[in-house]
């Protein structure tokens, strides 16, 4: 089974976000970059499919050279090859710009299954998976919490949450699946030391837009359908109030009930 995984490098979730001087982007100095957590689940899911079907896993990303480190991490976990689209013309694209580049790489690989996170934890758009599938004319299934493939590798079965329950779906191949769930569901494996050594020798190609036959006017800021015009911080919360420490436990409980009644108005 031929599996492609789309990964994005995002600021570490520990990052305190600050707005840059232009008022519409974030400060990126001092940021530590990590693989988007949902994409880590996608790599794990891909490796499990590979183990079951003796397949091959290709990691695809776009971004500057720093992204190589995240691709190497995926290779060290057990993926086979990597492709990075590094082209300054992609900077400041909306969902479609980057999706175009990703779709072009995927098309050349002709995979049976394409996996990616359901959202990247930076811009939180949750759109690229569906956009790539649309561009390739493939169906997609969102928010997977379980993925299984039949023995002949002709069909996948996917579980996804719905509000208050879950849904099981089946799809023929090829199909794109976006990963949901939480760390506890997928428990992505760590890269082993031998894995890290091997990853250094695995093929990792860098491509530009012209390698993919994409004109730079189709991507980037000028091709945006939707643009960020400004950013703002959430409203400061008023400094909190510690309920009087001199009260005993019962006193505090009574005081909290009063607050819920009179201020929050839920009782």
């Amino acid at each position, binding site marked *: 089974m031929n599996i492609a995984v789309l990964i994005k490098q995002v600021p570490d*979730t520990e*990052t*305190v*976000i600050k707005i840059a001087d232009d008022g519409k982007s974030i400060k990126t100095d001092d940021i530590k970059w990590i693989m988007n957590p949902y994409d880590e689940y996608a790599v794990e899911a891909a490796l499990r499919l590979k183990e079951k079907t003796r397949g091959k896993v290709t990691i695809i990303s776009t971004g500057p050279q720093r992204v190589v480190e995240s691709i190497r991490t995926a290779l060290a976990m057990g993926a086979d090859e990597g492709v990075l689209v590094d082209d300054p013309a992609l900077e400041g694209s*909306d*969902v*479609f710009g980057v999706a175009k580049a990703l779709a072009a790489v995927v098309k050349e690989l002709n995979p049976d299954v394409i996996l990616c996170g359901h959202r990247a934890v*930076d811009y*939180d*758009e*949750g*759109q690229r*998976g*569906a*956009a790539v599938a*649309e*561009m390739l004319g493939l*169906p997609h299934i*969102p*928010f997977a919490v379980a993925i299984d493939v039949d023995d002949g590798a002709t069909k996948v*079965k996917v579980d*996804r*949450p*719905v*509000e*208050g329950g*879950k*849904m*099981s*779906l*089946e799809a023929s191949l090829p*199909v794109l699946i976006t990963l949901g769930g*939480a*760390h*506890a569901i997928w428990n992505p494996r760590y890269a082993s030391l031998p894995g890290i050594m091997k990853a250094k020798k695995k093929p990792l190609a860098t491509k530009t837009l012209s390698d993919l036959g994409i004109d730079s006017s189709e991507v980037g800021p000028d091709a*945006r*359908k*939707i*643009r*960020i015009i400004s*950013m*703002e*911080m*959430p409203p400061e*919360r008023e400094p*909190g*109030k*510690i*309920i009087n420490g001199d009260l005993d*436990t*019962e006193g*505090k*409980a009574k005081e*909290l*009930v009063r*607050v*819920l009644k009179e201020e*929050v108005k*839920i*009782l």
Partner: protein
Amino acid sequence: MAGGVCVLTEFQDGDFRKVSYEVASEGKRVADALGCDLCAVVLGSGIGDKAGVLGKYGVSRAIVADDERLANYTAEAYVPVLSEILKELEPDVVLLPASLNGKDLGARLAAHLQTGLAMDCTEFKVEDGTIKAKRPLFAGKCFGWYEWDSSARPQIASCRPNVFERTVVDEGASAEISAVTPAVPSELKVQVVSVEKEEGGKIDLTEAEVIVSGGRGMKGPENFKMLEELAQLLGAAVGASRAAVDAGWRPHSDQVGQTGKVVTPNLYIAVGISGAIQHLAGMGSSKYIVAVNKDPDAPIFSKADYGIVEDLFKFIPIFTEEVKKAKG
């Protein structure tokens, strides 16, 4: 009718989901500001004449596609049907719920129509005859305002549940219903095999008015009974920190935070949760935050409107009793 605002509703198991009314209400506000009409598109099965109720929220016309094959959402079945209807309507603005299905539908629909989507919005404004949308970035660590290119129509935006007020504008009104025969593709590559609902119609965290969440301080899965009892009294849903989910005490769907659910309840009660940045990102936009923690220096107190420095095992049972008394 070209132009105007169109809302997509969510019809499931014989009724509209609550967020549909929130989206219709916001749609009405946007339509009024633009000085145009509001219509709705209702996809599902067994809708009958139930769509009339949308009139109360200001929808003048509801286009209804009632078909067994639309009983359960898949993008593959829904998108062709919707895009056909929207091509006819040519609305300027399309609003839909940022529920799980709505998020997925919006993404695929926007890609199909090659237009822009603002995902999971929390506010709209109308300026110079066009809309701008505000949405959280980095799980709410900051916000971005978006505008659409003039070539990108319709302007599609999904609305975060629990944020937009439901407003009945005319109790007696009923939406005019236009039934259409949906263009569901004859061959679907994705099939729904089964849908299982949890017992007791559990409230989803993203739609709950009140959330009681427990963290590592709960010490074990059995102690969550205490929070469940309190939640029941408050009509709340129970959430958890990643530490509690990783420990296997709670299901993954309960995780609140940057890599879990981002929630906006009226009241969030954090019990035995330290307040790591990833957790705060997911619940920091709650209207009121109460924290119960024995460590007075826990970072959660910096976000809490009301802090209780107590051992939770002592405090929660007494507090639960007091809530019972207050409810009479």
